């Protein structure tokens, strides 16, 4: 490779190196099989352990819902964080792959948010006596789903890709204010939803292993699918360029 004329941005060197689509394709292609295998292992062992736990003394067998509800919620919020960081990289440093990465993550964010809401409703009915209540945690989480929908709709609504990327990045950053609201909602307002219970040690140790494995499994699942989506977007862009060249 020839050396660049401009001085490299030292502090961002690492990020920019792997932002090169070529380099990303090479690296992601190499690590993908390992991510896929790790995902399958975590989910398989997590499910095995999850269905081996004794019933909770308060929540009975519904405690098994925790192993799919909490991971979905955490990934739903994590994906939004990922989109916000990518948007910042795109707006401030013009990071070349970050728009593609942010856009590729959004459908998975929406999916995990929907799963969090559905599994939560199905847990709420037997424990609270209702599928839904307009309290702070549930409402701010529903807002997250609408943020994902709005973000994806905005990408599709603006034809010019550079302008779409700019507008979507701004929307994503403005919407990021919702993430701490979701997280702290159970402390700030009195809600039906239980408070934070993992870090504060309120969960019986026997439930922790399956919970962490399922969380890791969900995170790895997202990372695996996200990488494939980014790879797909890179190939689609190459195909578009080739078609434009042929048409010119």
């Amino acid at each position: 490779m020839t050396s660049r004329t401009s001085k490299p941005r030292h502090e961002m060197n690492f990020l920019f190196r792997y932002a090169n689509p070529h380099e990303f394709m090479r690296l992601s292609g190499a690590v993908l099989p390992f991510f896929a295998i790790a995902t399958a292992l975590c989910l398989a062992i997590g499910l095995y352990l999850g269905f081996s736990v004794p019933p909770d003394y308060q929540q009975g067998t519904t405690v098994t819902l925790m192993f799919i509800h909490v991971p979905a919620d955490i990934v739903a919020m994590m994906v939004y964080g990922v989109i916000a960081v990518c948007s910042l990289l795109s707006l401030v440093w013009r990071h070349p792959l970050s728009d593609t990465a942010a856009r590729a993550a959004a459908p998975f964010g929406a999916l995990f948010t929907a799963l969090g809401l559905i599994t939560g409703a199905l847990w709420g009915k037997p424990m609270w006596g209702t599928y839904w209540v307009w309290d702070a945690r549930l409402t701010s989480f529903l807002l997250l789903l609408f943020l994902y929908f709005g973000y994806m709709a905005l990408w599709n609504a603006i034809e010019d890709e550079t302008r779409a990327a700019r507008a979507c990045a701004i929307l994503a950053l403005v919407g990021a204010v919702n993430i701490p609201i979701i997280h702290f909602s159970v402390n700030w307002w009195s809600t039906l939803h239980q408070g934070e219970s993992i870090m504060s040690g309120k969960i019986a140790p026997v439930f922790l292993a399956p919970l962490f494995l399922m969380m890791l499994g969900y995170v790895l699942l997202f990372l695996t699918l996200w990488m494939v989506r980014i790879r797909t977007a890179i190939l689609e862009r190459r195909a578009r360029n080739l078609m434009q060249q042929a048409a010119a």
Partner: protein
Amino acid sequence: MNFDMGAYGVYIWPAYGVSALAIIGAIVWTLVAWRRAKAKLAVLEKTPRGTAAPSK
């Protein structure tokens, strides 16, 4: 392993079912899109050789 969820089964199994369907659906959707993009690019990379201007 214990799959006897008692009376709560009516809430637990649909939750697991929906999650499994959604995850499998996401995997299939992602892989189909990847294969399609790869196939399209392969076709495009092949065609210009005969039709495009000779490379310099």
